[in-house]
């Protein structure tokens, strides 16, 4: 049986106050879990709580000791006006460029702020996805991506999981979630529970 990386039991998360319904979740190495649900149910807040940023108000959250986490949030890195190339970005997080799609590989030596929104997003995502980590948390990873980009991402996620990483992703894209994930959990709003 694969090693458990993180386990949540009736976890209620939030920033200043509880903002999510209780969640039960168990992620093993090599597994990909998708979290879906309508706007406002607290998907991003839960992801932040799993990363240790948002507060856990009740329930139980247990991480494997010395767990290395990589977290990608929805905001694009602030690289406008910064002389930073794609290759330098990957070097920062120690991510390998091996496996990048050709439409991005050819632009690795360009400045990030000279790339298109989709190229920049995918490279920023790649820098997190391929960084040395045991658990990868991705928030709406398909934002700004076209169909070939999403198809490539599904393959990259599968390869990363096959390499032993556990992945939890939040997405509104139902077909992407069903293609990429082993398990899908649809979250309910805090009001739906009360």
């Amino acid at each position, binding site marked *: 049986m694969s090693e458990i990386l993180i386990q949540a039991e009736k976890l209620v998360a939030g920033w200043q106050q509880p903002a999510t319904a209780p969640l039960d979740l168990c992620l093993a190495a090599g597994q990909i879990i998708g979290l879906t649900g309508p706007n406002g149910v607290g998907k991003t807040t839960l992801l932040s709580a799993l990363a240790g940023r948002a507060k856990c108000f009740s329930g139980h959250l247990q991480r494997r000791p010395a767990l290395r986490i990589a977290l990608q949030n929805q905001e694009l890195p602030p690289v406008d006006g910064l002389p930073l190339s794609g290759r330098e970005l990957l070097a920062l997080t120690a991510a390998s460029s091996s496996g990048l799609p050709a439409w991005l590989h050819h632009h690795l030596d*360009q400045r990030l702020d000279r790339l298109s929104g989709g190229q920049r997003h995918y490279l920023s995502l790649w820098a997190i996805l391929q960084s040395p980590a045991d658990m990868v948390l991705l928030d709406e990873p398909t934002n700004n991506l076209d169909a070939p980009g999403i198809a490539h991402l599904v393959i990259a996620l599968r390869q990363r999981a096959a390499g032993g990483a556990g992945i939890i992703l939040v997405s509104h894209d139902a077909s992407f979630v069903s293609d990429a994930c082993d398990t899908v959990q649809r979250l309910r709003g805090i009001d739906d529970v009360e």
Partner: protein
Amino acid sequence: MWNDLFLVPFLSGLCLALLLPVLGCFLRLRDEWLAALAYAHVAAAGALLALVAGLAPMLGGIGAAALVGAGKRFFPKRLAGGAAFVLLLLAGWATAVLLTANQPLAERLGNALFDGQLYFSDSSNFYLLLLWSLFALPVLFHLSSQLLLARIYPDYFHARHLPVWPVLSGFDLLAALSLALATTTLGVMSSFALVFVPPWIVFSRARTWRSGIFLAALIGLLGYSAAFALALGFDQPFGPVLALLLVMVGLVIA
């Protein structure tokens, strides 16, 4: 130009012409270029206060800037977004000008600090700047990737349970001390020009971070050397000549 009278000041400034543009790249990365002006004014006020108190001016400048640089992370959140730097700048400037106006002892040094007269630098000052540059430049290169990560992926450190404050506070202290040394050697505005203009030029032009750092240092070195020769040749105060030259270079390239 190459006698001791001018060679020592030239070499002193050369150390700073290499260090300040590199430091400026990191301040610009963090959107803190205004910090350079604030630290310079605080250092000027500290140097004048020390002089009036009968202490070495450089000690006062370094002490005041170090205090502010190290204490920056304890500033209240309402002073975020650059407000702290503006207040420090105004307080430093006002203190320095009042001391210059009311203390005869402080008048000469005050004028030198704000006019930017490099020629008072002696050999002990040069050795101090050389040692500091030899320390600060490798430290900056060592912190480079962590400062970039802290800016681009602010969650990176938190997600890995790594403390980011030693990196940021270490950088703040290094920036404050460098600006204090620069201010008491080159003057307030010359230091600011070297911190601001070369990074401003290269941020829009360079293709990579590494080449940007290299180009900023090169522009600093060339601009400083040309300004030194021009100021000496035409018997003009060094600070304004350097500032004007860098502004012109910046405008031409922009």
